[in-house]
């Protein structure tokens, strides 16, 4: 009888412990349904992400000495990235001018407005190719919109939209499929898919397409979701087998996703 009483007492206390713990989490969850509180909490989360990113960049600097070959290589890559972005912008603008000349009626070119967002959380799984941002349906975000960083570099796509937050799937995610073209070679079209780490693969490249290391890959806009000309990455290796119907190219991202905390969300063209 005493043992039974002791057991039931233990179960009661365990129940009370769980109830106290869960009730606070439930209250927090209910508060998160209030947009004002959710925004307040997201501001705190964004601050934590910024602090963590700052610490992370510091650690990265300490573990990579300035004089190392890796650091010098990184510096060269940075210069290459800047040039690549300039090249992309130049080509996009040239094409736009051609279109304006051919279309007399087209007098005002309207640019779709983007929404500036901040990263409030990052995925904790192995590939870490998703981030949560602080804007949602209340701010007019739409599923499928492109998330852009820097000067027109594609960061990812909005995968899921909630009331006050959204999930952005990074370009490097294994489920990511983005129609792409090689800059300056408009007919070279392929599908960029995520692979391990920061490595991407461009599939379904026609065998007759001329492709080489160092070519810049940009979005083609074929899916109607992402505008064309957004930079994806650089070709590092081309795999071409004569018997295969298509070529394959490995692409390297021009940025470290972990280092970015501010994104520009561009709605699909025409919206």
């Amino acid at each position, binding site marked *: 009888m005493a043992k039974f009483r002791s057991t039931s007492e233990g179960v009661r206390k365990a129940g009370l412990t769980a109830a*106290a713990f*869960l009730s606070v989490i439930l209250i927090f969850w209910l508060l998160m349904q209030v947009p004002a509180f959710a925004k307040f909490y997201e501001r705190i989360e964004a601050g934590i*992400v910024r602090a963590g990113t700052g610490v992370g960049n510091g650690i990265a600097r300490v573990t990579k000495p300035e004089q190392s070959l890796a650091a010098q290589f990184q510096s060269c890559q940075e210069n290459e990235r800047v040039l690549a972005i300039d090249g992309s912008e130049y080509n996009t603008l040239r094409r736009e001018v051609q279109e304006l000349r051919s279309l007399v009626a087209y007098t005002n070119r309207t640019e779709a407005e983007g929404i500036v967002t901040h990263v409030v959380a990052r*995925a904790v799984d192995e590939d870490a190719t998703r981030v949560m941002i602080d804007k949602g349906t209340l701010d007019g975000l739409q599923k499928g919109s492109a998330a852009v960083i820097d000067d027109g570099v594609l960061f990812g796509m909005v995968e899921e939209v909630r009331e006050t937050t959204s999930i952005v799937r990074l370009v490097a995610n294994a489920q990511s499929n983005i129609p792409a073209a090689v800059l300056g070679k408009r007919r070279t079209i392929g599908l960029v898919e995520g692979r391990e780490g920061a490595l991407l693969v461009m599939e379904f490249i026609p065998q007759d397409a001329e492709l080489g290391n160092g070519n810049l890959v940009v979005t083609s806009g074929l899916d109607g979701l992402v505008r064309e000309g957004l930079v994806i990455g650089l070709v590092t290796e081309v795999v071409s087998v004569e018997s295969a119907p298509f070529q394959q190219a490995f692409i390297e991202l021009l940025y470290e996703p972990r280092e970015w905390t501010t994104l520009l969300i561009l709605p699909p063209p025409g919206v």
Partner: protein
Amino acid sequence: MDDLAHSPPARRMITNALYAVLFIITLALQTGAVASLPEPYRLFPLALVMGVIVLHERSLVLGALWLSLSGFILEARGLGDGLAIAGIVASLAAITLALSVFVKRSFWALLGVGIGTAVTYVVARILWLFVWVIFTRTPVQFGSLIEQSVAVVLLAILGIFIFGAYIRRFLRWSRDKFVSKGQLYDISFPQ
């Protein structure tokens, strides 16, 4: 258990509620600060380490809730796949280890529970990804996944070694401050 009877239930409830606040802060730090660190530090399983320490130091129920809810919440927020199942499996493993294998409340027992739980967690994740790959046909690099899983276990061990003693001291201080001085554990362990 006698000491527990003298503990004011209200104070115990407040302590448990404070653990819930600590849980929310831990998750924010996991997805914000830790996930923003470079590889391999971003893999540090902060929520898992804290869950194991809470389970070992404070309460089986709290620890189990901590481990399973952290996975569930992170997955529900869209910050990882298969984390809910891995969290539930890890919490079951942690309870079993704490009740049957590492029954003492020593630092080494804590380390034992931590290693066992971390290994179970990563194995559950890998198995889940196997099933996920079969159903979704999404390419997963299992070589790198295993490397990262090893890193998760090593970082968990390192985390318990470095922070375990401090967190234990803090939890014991808060228990003495808010619950009842000298009370060893929320639920009695078999001797």
